[in-house]
C-alpha cells in the first residue's frame, strides 16, 4: 500500500478539445523507480495528457493523484515534486544559459548536489556557451539548456515532452542515462517520444494513445 500511495496515478482521464474527444479512460499507476513512456501518432493528445498530469489542463473526466491525493487538493506540495520540460521550456532567449538556469533554480528549487555551472557541464554545453544569449544557440543546445534543469532539481517526478527532439546521438544517450539514474534513485518519469528509448535496467511502462 505504501508504494501505491507514493506514486503518480491517473484514473479514467479524459480530455476534450474543440468538441473532439482526444482520449478517454486513460489510467495508469506509476511507482517509485518507474518510467512511463507515452506513444502515439501526432495529434493524439500526448502533450495534452502531459499538461493534464502537470495540472495545467483540467481533465474533462477523471483525476490525477499524487501520493493518493487529488493533485488539485494540495497543488503546492505536488508542484515541489514536479519538473515539467515541455516543447517550450521557459528558456529566455535574451538570457545566457547560466542566467536561465540560475533563475530556474530560484523558482524551482535545487537539490544542493549540483551547481548550475556543473549542470551545464554535465549536459554537454561547451564552456564558452555559458555566456552568450540563448537566441544565438542552436536548437539542440537550447534543448540541452532546458534539460539541464533536471540535474538541479530535487523533484521526484519528471514530465518530459519529446525530450529527444533536436538532440544528436550523444545528447540522446545523455538523456537516457539521466533517466536511468533518476529511476535508480527512486524517481519517476513520464516521457513522450517517437523514438525507441533505451532504458535497460529500469522498469518501463508503455502507454499507447490514439
Amino acid at each position: 500500500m505504501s508504494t501505491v500511495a507514493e506514486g503518480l496515478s491517473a484514473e479514467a482521464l479524459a480530455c476534450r478539445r474543440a468538441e473532439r474527444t482526444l482520449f478517454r479512460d486513460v489510467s495508469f499507476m506509476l511507482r517509485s523507480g518507474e518510467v512511463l513512456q507515452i506513444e502515439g501518432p501526432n495529434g493524439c493528445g500526448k502533450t495534452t495528457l502531459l499538461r493534464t498530469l502537470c495540472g495545467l489542463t483540467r481533465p474533462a473526466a477523471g483525476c490525477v493523484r499524487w501520493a493518493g491525493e487529488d493533485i488539485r487538493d494540495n497543488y503546492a506540495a505536488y508542484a515541489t515534486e514536479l519538473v515539467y520540460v515541455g516543447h517550450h521550456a521557459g528558456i529566455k532567449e535574451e538570457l545566457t544559459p547560466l542566467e536561465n538556469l540560475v533563475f530556474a533554480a530560484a523558482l524551482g528549487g535545487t537539490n544542493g548536489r549540483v551547481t548550475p555551472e556543473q549542470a551545464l557541464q554535465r549536459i554537454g554545453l561547451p564552456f564558452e556557451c555559458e555566456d552568450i544569449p540563448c537566441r544565438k544557440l542552436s536548437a539542440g543546445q537550447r534543448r540541452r539548456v532546458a534539460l539541464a534543469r533536471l540535474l538541479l532539481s530535487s523533484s521526484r517526478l519528471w514530465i518530459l515532452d519529446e525530450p529527444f527532439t533536436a538532440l544528436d546521438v550523444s545528447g540522446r544517450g545523455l538523456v537516457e542515462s539521466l533517466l536511468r539514474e533518476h529511476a535508480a534513485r527512486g524517481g519517476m518519469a513520464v516521457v513522450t517520444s517517437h523514438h525507441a528509448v533505451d532504458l535497460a535496467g529500469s522498469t518501463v511502462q508503455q502507454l499507447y494513445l490514439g
Partner: protein
Amino acid sequence: MNTPSLAHAWFALLRRDVMLALRQRGQLANPLLFFVLVVALFPLGMNPDPALLRNIAPGVIWVGALLAAMLALESMFRSDFDDGALEQMLLTPYPLPLLVLAKVAAHWLVTGLPLLLVAPLLALLLNLEGEAMVILLASLALGTPLLSLIGAIGVALTVGLRRGGVLLSLLVLPLYVPVLIFAAGAVGNAQAGMAVTGQLAFLGALLALAVALAPLATAAALRISLD
C-alpha cells in the same frame, strides 16, 4: 528538498523581468517616445498660447500617459506565454497571484516609472508649474501602477489569442476611464487653487484595491488562458 523561500523567488522573478527589459531597450523606449511625441505635438498642432496650453495640460499629459501605458501592456505576458515561462510559473509551489504581482511590479518599473520621470519636462513644455506639477507627479505616481495592475487582467485574458490587441484595448479602456477622470481632475483642481485631496484619496483607494484584487483576477485569467 531545498525549496527557496517565496521572497527569494519573488525577487528573482522581478530581477529577471527588469533584466530582460533592459536587454531589449528598443521595446522599452517605444511607449516612452510615444508619450513624449504625443504631448510635444499639441503645442505645434494648436494655438501655442501659454494660458491655453496650461488649461489643456492635465488632460493631454494624462491621455498621453494612458495611451503609452496601453501600448506597453501587450508585452507584459506575451513573450512568457510564447516561450513557456508562464507555464513554468504556474508549476511552482508559490501562490500565483504573488508571482503575478512581481511581474506587474517589474513591468511598472520599466514602463510606468520612465513616464513619471519625463513628466516634469512635458509639464514645463505645456506651461504647467508649481503646485500643479507636484500634483501631476503625485497623480502619476498613484495612477500608473493602477494602469499596470488593471491592464494585467486584460492582458492575461487575451494572451492566448493570436490577435488580442483590439480586444485588449476594448476590455481595458473603460476601466482606465475612472483613473483618467480622477487624475486629470486633481491636476486641474490644483491649477485652479482648489482642494485635491479628494481625487488623490480616490486614486490611492483604487490603487490599494487593485493591488489586493487585480493579481487574483490576473492569476485566474492566466490559468484560463493556459488551459
